[in-house]
């Protein structure tokens, strides 16, 4: 069986909504989405599945870049996007159900974003 | 004072004093048997008394002062209904007092206006709608059965008059169950609702693992909840008394049969509780009205027609 865990394709930010739309039209389902903070940039992963096959797209964005929400295309994305927004501070715009940083009840803002010079 | 009056007063007093004791013990036995059915050890039989004593020691908090008054009215009418029953008074009065008690319970619950009690109260009204017809029909059934069965009125000098009075109903030649088995089935069925047992523990349950938590009784704290518990014991004893009434005749041996019947019915309720899931209100409504109409309704028709057939 093909090793889908390594199947990660990097795409530019502009293509994110287009790719999501294509995946939706193909009848695939959103498997997961997550953010990583590396080298002062966010790496956003979006995985889509069709039965056992999985494609993962990686979008690298700067700290201040705005990311369009895909929750209008894939409704379940709202949980993942709220999480990214709250834990990492990714600037995601237009989430269907936006919890406004109240998804998790935490005391600190963007705890997963390492402070500059802090580490 | 006549002998009959003394007996009446003694039995009313006995009910007021002994019913909570008996009711508490019954609940203890209920818990124990339930636990054994679930392969648990279970609490000791006297545990309900400790629970109620502990509740009395807790602080009473309520958002509405009227609640306590309404609850006291509830327990008063339950005791009143039981007193009427064991004092040998009118069956209709007994069930109407019991309904009045339920109304006070609903008022007490809804006096606090919280979401969970709100849902619980509406469900309690539905439960009343399922129980009341059966209760009233049972009273009517006893009346008609006494007409057919021929009450033993020789000592009173009256001849074959039907009666709603409990003191007359226990003085019959043949047990009422012979004439009203359908009513008996309907009554046992609604007992499941009255005792708040699964599958019909919708408005409030004996345990809080339910979507409305404790529903109707969720807002009663401390002593107020203890009062509801004690009222429930009174009610339980009274309703089991009605079960016994189906079997009692002027023959003293019949009391043994009645006691046996009460034990079987009580065990059956526990068994049903432990072998069914909680159903939704619409199914409860359909089931109880179906049983009431099919069993009690048919029985009623037969009792209506039978005297005329016998007369010819």
């Amino acid at each position, binding site marked *: 069986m093909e*090793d*889908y865990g390594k199947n990660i394709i990097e795409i530019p930010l502009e293509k994110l909504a287009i790719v999501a739309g294509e995946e939706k039209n193909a009848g695939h389902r959103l498997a997961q989405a997550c953010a990583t903070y590396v080298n002062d940039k966010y790496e956003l992963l979006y995985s889509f599945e069709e039965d056992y096959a999985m494609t993962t797209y990686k979008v690298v964005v700067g700290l201040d870049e705005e990311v369009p929400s895909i929750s209008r295309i*894939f409704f379940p994305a709202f*949980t993942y996007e709220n999480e990214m927004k709250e834990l990492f501070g990714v600037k995601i715009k237009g989430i269907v159900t936006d919890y406004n940083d109240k998804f998790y009840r935490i005391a600190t803002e963007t705890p997963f974003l390492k402070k500059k010079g802090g580490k | 004072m006549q002998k009959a009056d003394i007996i009446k007063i003694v039995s009313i007093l006995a009910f007021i004093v002994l019913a909570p004791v008996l009711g508490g013990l019954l609940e203890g036995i209920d818990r124990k048997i339930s636990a054994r059915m679930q392969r648990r050890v279970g609490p000791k039989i006297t545990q309900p008394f400790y629970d109620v004593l502990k509740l009395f020691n807790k602080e009473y908090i309520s958002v509405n002062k009227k609640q306590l008054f309404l609850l006291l009215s509830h327990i008063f009418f339950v005791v009143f209904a039981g007193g009427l029953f064991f004092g040998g008074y009118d069956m209709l009065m007994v069930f109407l007092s019991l309904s009045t008690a339920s109304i006070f319970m609903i008022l007490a619950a809804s006096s606090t206006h919280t979401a969970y009690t709100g849902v619980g109260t509406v469900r309690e009204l539905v439960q009343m709608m399922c129980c009341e017809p059966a209760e009233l029909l049972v009273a009517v059934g006893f009346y008609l059965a006494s007409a057919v069965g021929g009450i033993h009125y020789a000592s009173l000098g009256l001849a074959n008059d039907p009666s709603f009075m409990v003191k007359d109903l226990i003085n019959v030649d043949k047990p009422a169950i012979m004439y009203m088995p359908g009513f008996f089935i309907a009554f046992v069925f609604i007992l499941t609702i009255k005792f708040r047992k699964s599958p019909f523990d919708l408005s409030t349950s004996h345990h809080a693992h*339910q979507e409305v938590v404790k529903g109707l009784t969720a807002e009663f704290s401390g002593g107020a909840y203890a009062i509801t518990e004690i009222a429930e014991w009174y009610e339980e004893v009274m309703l089991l008394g009605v079960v016994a009434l189906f079997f009692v005749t002027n023959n003293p041996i019949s009391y043994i049969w009645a006691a046996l019947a009460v034990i079987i019915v009580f065990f059956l309720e526990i068994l049903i509780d432990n072998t069914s*899931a909680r159903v939704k209100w619409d199914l409860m409504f359909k089931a109880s009205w179906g049983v009431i109409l099919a069993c009690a309704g048919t029985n009623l028709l037969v009792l209506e027609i039978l005297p005329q057939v016998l007369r010819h």
Partner: protein
Amino acid sequence: MPKKTVIPFGPQHPVLPEPIHLDLVLEDETVVDAIPSIGFIHRGLESLVEKKDFNEMVYVAERICGICSFMHGMGYCEAVEHVMDIDIPDRAKYLRTIWCEFSRLHSHLLWLGLLADGFGFEALFNECWRIREQVLDMVEMTTGGRLIASVNRVGGVLKDITPDMLKQMKAVAENVGRELVPVADTFLNDYSVKSRLCGSGILSKEDAIALGACGPMMRASGIAVDHRKSGYAAYGNIDFDVITSNDCDGYGRVYVRIQELFQSVEIVRQAIDKIPDSEEIMIKPKGNPKGEYLMRLEQPRGEAFYYVKGNGSKNLDRFRVRTPTFGNLAPLVHTLKGAPFADVPLLVLTIDPCVSCTER
């Protein structure tokens, strides 16, 4: 127009096994809207990668949740092993498979009990948990812990199971299969139970795909995806079918999970029969992980994702867990809309919520 009331459901509610909060908008007894909110037990475990090295992270992964503990540890280890190109010894793969299935057994039995309690069937609840106890005893005997097994390491497993223990495990699994028969019969055929389960929480096949449902929730909607089929651990050598149901409702989800219990018993039996004899159960990892990998595996509650990104140092850049409950939140909201209030606890339970996992 009926009056609308908002009922706060949870986080502290007797039918909820773990804290999740739902704001339910009710019209009489019908739910018209439900807004979930979580975050009462968020611990930020993922960010511990900054402080713990990749070997120590196994302990953290295992402690994400008590019920899914073994598979979290295993998922993390498999992901790191993929990054580091470690092929673990065959015996270790089989041992992982056996413990995996024991986790599934106790997790599903726990869930069945909670569901029975949710619809007010206490005797059934106690029966399920009584059966579960022997499964836990076996886990304790072989690993030393009842829930947190802590036997996974990057490169294999820490403890071996002796042949005697294997024999006993097989006997217990078979016994569980036997004792389960009457319980399954009650769940699937009892009138009052069926009156609660049938037709509650309909999730069509299309909705299941669109809303990203996973695990038994998805399989109960007729989608045959079980990631054990992708052949991680020793599942590639074991013969089993994906269990699905076309009921799309609560009954279907119960059916799928009950059949999976019987299937788990069968998988345990196969794994114990096929386990190779070898002393080697662990390969010591050399160097540090560099690269990224997205591991998928089938938790009792559905597919879980473990994303690991290493930069060549002993601390990982990112460790991310996506648990099945997180994926099932959207389907839950969907099924809650239009459901009667009495069904709310059941619907929350039918996704088999594991909130500790979800919030990490």
